[in-house]
């Protein structure tokens, strides 16, 4: 049988990030897939040796530009635990609002890229058009569209006033309406279903054993979401994880779509219940000890392992990102799919390579 060997990446128009897959194909069916990474590896965990623990917030924000706010949130949360302080309630609510907004822009971005990966250009445009509304909120409330830089150890740097809250509410109404209008032409579309249903199927057992995280895990019927660990404002807000059971690309699409709507509700609830008070507490001590902390990123479970010994520089910052966890499931999904479905399957885990390689 004649085999085709194709380098999928590092520069590839469908994957905006430099991931390389060596694919061995027969009649365009993937027989073997082996990834090569390292094209984005910077080694930023080691920067902790030259940046103090406060400066490191700016570094971890740049682990990934798409979920930068949540990286900083996780890092700060961990340090706060290590220092034995708690961020004030208002700060925890604001963190929740911004992190859910981040999840929304990330999911919308993904929806667009996913549509684009299937050659559905008009829906790519549509999703990114909706996404711009969230970007407007980011820019208006933090001064930057992408890297919002609101977290500090001990709380947040910026506040939302009542006018802004009302405005965000109206934006969310628009986004909600536009999202609901997207269901028929995108989620339930015949061609989209043809391209996603039954593609890259993983059962709940497989996906759990392979250590998947986030929507990839939940699309196979495992109800696990770090927001269930009640960090930030989730200890007071009602939260139920979004779960689908089919375990294929379409289920992952549905999970992210439904999470978008769920995030709108969370932001609304958080804005309604937003307590008054301080934005941050002062940090006096130097951190010491070992801590593991987790939050739910748009792509899934994010874990920070921090180690310090009472100096201004931490000894070790170890970041386990969700995409890192989702690569083994991806490798399990690829053999047997068509080349045309490789982008669909790869995008279905919402890969973030800059997260993975740090």
């Amino acid at each position, binding site marked *: *049988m*004649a085999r085709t060997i194709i380098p999928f990446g*590092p520069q590839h128009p469908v994957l905006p990030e430099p991931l*390389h897959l060596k694919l061995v194909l027969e*009649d365009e069916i993937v027989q073997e897939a082996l*990834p090569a990474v390292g094209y984005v590896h910077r080694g930023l965990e080691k920067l902790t040796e030259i940046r103090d623990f406060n400066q490191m917030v700016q570094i971890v924000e740049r682990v990934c530009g798409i979920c930068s706010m949540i990286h900083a949130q996780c890092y700060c949360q961990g340090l706060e635990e290590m220092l034995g302080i708690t961020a004030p309630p208002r700060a925890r609510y604001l963190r929740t609002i911004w992190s859910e907004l981040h999840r929304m822009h990330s999911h919308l971005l993904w929806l667009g890229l996913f549509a684009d990966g299937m050659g559905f250009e008009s829906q790519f445009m549509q999703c990114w058009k909706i996404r711009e509304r969230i970007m407007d909120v980011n820019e208006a409330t933090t001064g930057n569209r992408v890297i919002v830089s609101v977290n500090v150890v001990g709380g947040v740097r910026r506040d939302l006033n009542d006018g802004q809250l009302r405005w965000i509410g109206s934006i969310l109404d628009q986004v909600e309406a536009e999202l609901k209008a997207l269901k028929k032409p995108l989620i339930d579309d015949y061609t989209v279903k043809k391209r996603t249903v039954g593609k890259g199927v993983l059962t709940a057992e497989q996906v759990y054993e392979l250590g998947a995280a986030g929507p990839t895990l939940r699309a196979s019927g495992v109800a696990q979401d770090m927001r269930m660990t009640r960090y930030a404002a989730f200890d007071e807000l009602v939260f139920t994880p979004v779960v689908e059971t089919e375990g294929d690309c379409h289920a992952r699409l549905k999970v992210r779509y439904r999470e978008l709507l769920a995030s709108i509700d969370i932001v609304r609830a958080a804005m309604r219940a937003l307590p008054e008070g301080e934005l941050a507490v002062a940090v006096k001590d130097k951190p010491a000890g070992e801590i593991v902390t987790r939050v739910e990123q748009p792509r899934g479970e994010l874990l920070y392992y921090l180690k310090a010994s009472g100096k201004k520089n931490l000894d070790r910052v170890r970041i386990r990102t969700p995409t890192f966890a989702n690569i083994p499931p991806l490798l399990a999904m690829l053999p047997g799919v068509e080349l045309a479905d490789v982008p669909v399957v790869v995008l279905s885990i919402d890969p973030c390579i800059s997260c993975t390689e740090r």
Partner: protein
Amino acid sequence: MENTLLFVLIFLPFAAAGLCWLVPSGAVRRGVVLVTAALLAAASLGLFGRGAFAATPESLLGLPLNGLITLADFALLLVILGIGLKRKNRWITILTLLQLVPLAIFELTLPEHGPIAPALVIDGLSLIMILVISIVGSLICVFALPYMEAHEQHLHLRSSRQGRFFFFLVLFLGAMNGLVAANNILWAYFFWELTTLCSFALIGHDGGEEATANAVRALVMNLFGGVALVCGIIFLYGAAKTLSIQDVVQAGSLGTMAFVAFALIALAGFTKAAQLPFQSWLLGAMVAPTPVSALLHSSTMVKAGVYIVLRFAPAFAGSAFADCLAVAGGFTFCVATGLALGQSNGKRILAYSTIGNLGLIMACAGIGTPAALAAGMLFIVFHAVSKGLLFLCVGAIEQTIGSRDIEDMRGLYDRMPRTAVITVIGIVTMLLPPFGVLMAKWMAIEAAADNLPVVVLIAMGSALGVVVWGRWAGILMSSSRTKKAWPEAQPALLRWPLAVLAGGAVVLSFLLPAVYASLVAPMLKGPIAGSAGSLASGLAAYLIYPLFLVLAAGFLYAVIAARQARAAVDTVYLAGAQAGPPESPAFTGPMDQPVVVSAGNYYLPSIFGEERLTFPLNVIAVALIIIMAGGALI
């Protein structure tokens, strides 16, 4: 003069074959084959110059010819019977007996033993066949000379078996010429069985288990066809009371019994032309040295099958039987081309394509309009040249690169530039306008437009053909070299037949209107007079020549423009990971290892796989043949 030429065409090969067998000297054999080839080609051209005629040779070297052939006929059958007994093969024995006994009874009870007048008839169709046999066939024999030298060297034989090989090879040409010239159907039958024997000997030439088994299979299947032919002849005589083919064809309506005869003759044609479900013998014949395949596929053997059906086509044109024949032919065309798509073995691709194209000729015979018959005849010519060429190309390639798999021919241009270009020419002449095969296909589609199932099958089959040929020709030129490759060394006797056939395929297509006017048009008289479609109209030449010239001019311009392009050398796009020199493209893969790029064609075994399809398709083919027989009874 005509008689002398005919004598040369039919009996010279017999004599030359005998010489090859008897004289062990290689030099003599070489001389004999070359002279025979030259004489045959010259004689066929001479005959072409003379045009149609009829002849009744009474005797050969003083012996009455009719009796001689009857005698030879029985001798031949006894030889085959002997083969059957010696190999203890029940089928060979039974099928031979099934011919021997009815034939004996028929000969004994035949009321008139006198010679049929005329015994030999040369008309356009015969001339086409004779030209193809004598020129393409002879070129293949010449090609075989150096090929067999290398072949035997490769096999390390202790004593050369080339004498036997060339005996049957050259004999084949004589038998075929005899078959197509014969008007006495019993004579035709003799030559028909002779080709069966020759093919058996040649397929099994290399010995060995596989070769022998395949040779036996070929013999059994063709003997089955022989039985059908004998029965057909008996029925035909019962219906028409004549052994003259011309009389039958011109007799007009002959009744049901004649249609039974036609069905049987068509069945015989199906076996010889390896139509489904009889394709396995031709595929098995691939074990033989390549010149044998080339001969079997292009100018002899399988062409006998379509010849005999085309010969009788005017007699059954327009009947229900003819419609069924057209569908069966179209079916074979479509599915055999589909099966070719599933193959990567070059010779099997060619084999399936041959089966398919012969199916198309069968379909033309079934459609039976003047345009269709003209298309069928043109097909015989152009297919023979291109297919013969392609087989020789595969043979030459196989002897150099050691494989006949088309995947191994990827980038052949780097190693065998001349042969690669010639192969591409061969494929293009099979595939694209303005070359003859496609022009004939064009006529066939126009002619089939009134027969819905057939036109659907032809449309589908022709699209499958584009895939089969397109990818093969494409990968031959898949070169990463930027400078010209070394010219390849090749024996002159290998090189020239390739060059002549390649040139012939192109030039002959240019002469298509002339071929049509001189050979095909005269056939479209009498019972099948009528319009022969766009190509046949007086404007054909006005259409073909400008098109040919425009395309040729564009072609030349493209050649010059491409050669003069002062372009920087480009590396292959490999997602930015390319590494290594442009001559051997590779990319940096996982673990920093260089990965050499490779590509493969799509063979889609789940759709076009032989293993999957052969049985169900054979069942359908048998059903179609039964329906065809039923059609004959209506």
